């Protein structure tokens, strides 16, 4: 078992994957994210990054874009 880290989704490099361990956000966001597959224990892959800009992520068969401020609120464990 890896040690719990303080990493957030925004720390993950392009083309790297991570496991979601917590989503610290407003309820509506958590609900929507969950419906899109962004929920605890799922593996998320960062597919594109823009400098200080949004990131593009992939879970299972779905891709979405997310702002950095939101990615900052998703705690992950690097794989």
């Amino acid at each position, binding site marked *: 078992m890896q040690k719990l880290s303080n990493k957030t989704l925004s720390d993950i490099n392009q083309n790297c994957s991570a496991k979601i361990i917590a989503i610290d956000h407003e309820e509506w966001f958590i*609900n929507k994210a969950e419906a*899109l597959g962004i929920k605890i224990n799922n593996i998320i892959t960062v597919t594109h990054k823009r400098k200080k800009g*949004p990131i593009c992520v992939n879970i*299972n*068969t*779905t*891709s979405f874009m997310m702002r950095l*401020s939101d990615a900052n609120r998703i705690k992950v464990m690097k794989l």
Partner: protein
Amino acid sequence: MKKIALIGMPNSGKSTFFNSISGASAKVANWSGVTVDIESVKTLIFGEIAELIDLPGIYTLKSGSDDELVVHDFLKNNEIDEIFFILNSSQIDRQIDLVLQLRNLGYKVRLLCNMSDEAKKNGIEINYKELEKRLAIPIHPISAKFQSGYEFLNQRLQAFEKKISVKPLVQNEIYQYVNFPKHSNDKTTAILDKFFLHHLWGLPTFIILLFVLFQIIYGIAEPLQEVMGLVFDSAGEYINLYLNQNLPKLFSSFLYDGVYLGVTTVLTFIPVIIIFFIVMSFIENSGYLSRAGFVMDKVMEKMGLDGRSFVMILFGFGCNVPALMSTKIMRSKTTQFLTMLIIPFSLCSARLQVFLFFTAIFFSPQMGALVLFFMYILSFLIIIITALIFKDKKAIHESVLIEMPPYRLPTIKQTLLTAVHEINHFLKRASKFILGGVIVVWLLTNFHVSPNVTIADHISSFLSPIFDPIGINNKLIIALIFGFIAKEILIGALAVIFSSNMDTLGEILQSEINWQQALSFMTFTLIYTPCLSTIATIKSQSKNIRLVATSLLWSLALAWIVSFIFYQLLINFS
């Protein structure tokens, strides 16, 4: 009559399905408990006429977003007989929970597994029979894009299982019924994304693409618009002559100057809207719009907007109306309203005509080009300033979670259906409002308070203390009142007001006003309310009178302030 509600997550192909069934016959009706427009269509389903109701896309039943609230309120306040739940088969694993939730609330749910073509291509196998048994709901694989799998709609209704609730699916249970390939088969999307989302090439590619599309839209639409204008003009001459000979003057003027001119002005919008929507629906359906949103998001975030707003504002430079209509895909009301507030400041082609006319009269060709360029810059500046002033301070870091669908090649049929749908939408909602507006302007300019003084004259002399400091005289004020209908008729209105014909209008204008006044008039024309069609569209899209009022008042106030600054600077320092 049976009522069937169409429910599904965003991007599951709900609109494609609804458009393919309704064509141009969708209607907006009132439903209790909801204030937004909900479209529905009456059509033959299961051998009887039923009403299919298109509800907004939702992610959950918990009322989080505005759209979710609408669906929630709709279901609470209206009796419905059945739900068609439409989902994207490739994402069945994450969309299925919502289906069961609805079923267990007691609704008769029928599951339409859409995009079955794509799922098959991606190597996804669904065991429909077993899943049907497990969920105790009828399931139909369909493809809305290719309109296949619709046969079930023609069958007599199958009996529904009793309303016993079924156990929710436990985690990963769905994978007993659905087989996903180990690796995604969709290599095309990954490759295209490497290019379109690239941190260096992404932006230039986007700009070039937009430029090309823009050229296509207006390269085709403008000549069409001109031809239609010419046809209406020459037909109008005959109609006018006929009316004049056979009807009392006031009545024939009402029919011609009011109704005919108003209606035909609206009609000339149609080519632009059709072509715009063909292109827009292509960009959206191909999956590129959300990529453009990604590329532009960082800049637009500072203005309280999201990346997709940029595309819409830019299209507003062609015509504000379709640009405003396309904001409906934005799911955040704050962002949508702000985008709608700034689009009318995009220098549309109708205003360009006025500016071309004025610059040709008042400036040398070199100077004229410079003035024109300046107008475009001014338009951009006003957009930025308005966004900065009106942006929701909280929205700066507004969360954005936008799905990036795979790239798809839209079919021609699908694209045309969308265009037809939108035109229908525009005509139905805007026409009454526009006709009303035209009639009001006709009354203002034709009804006399005393001999030789119309209501408009009265208003313009009443307003002249306000317009004097910006160099706009009484006659120009009346032209501005006409300009409310549409900027296209401004020049024509000037000709009537200055009692000249088109050929001599230039000379007359030159003798009546100076270039500073002309520039002030152009500035005012750029910023104040673009046209009735725009206001009608803002009203029908937003259902928010406050937004309409803000748009009107802010644009008028800003138009005055900017014109004042320019005019005073010009007359004092030149």
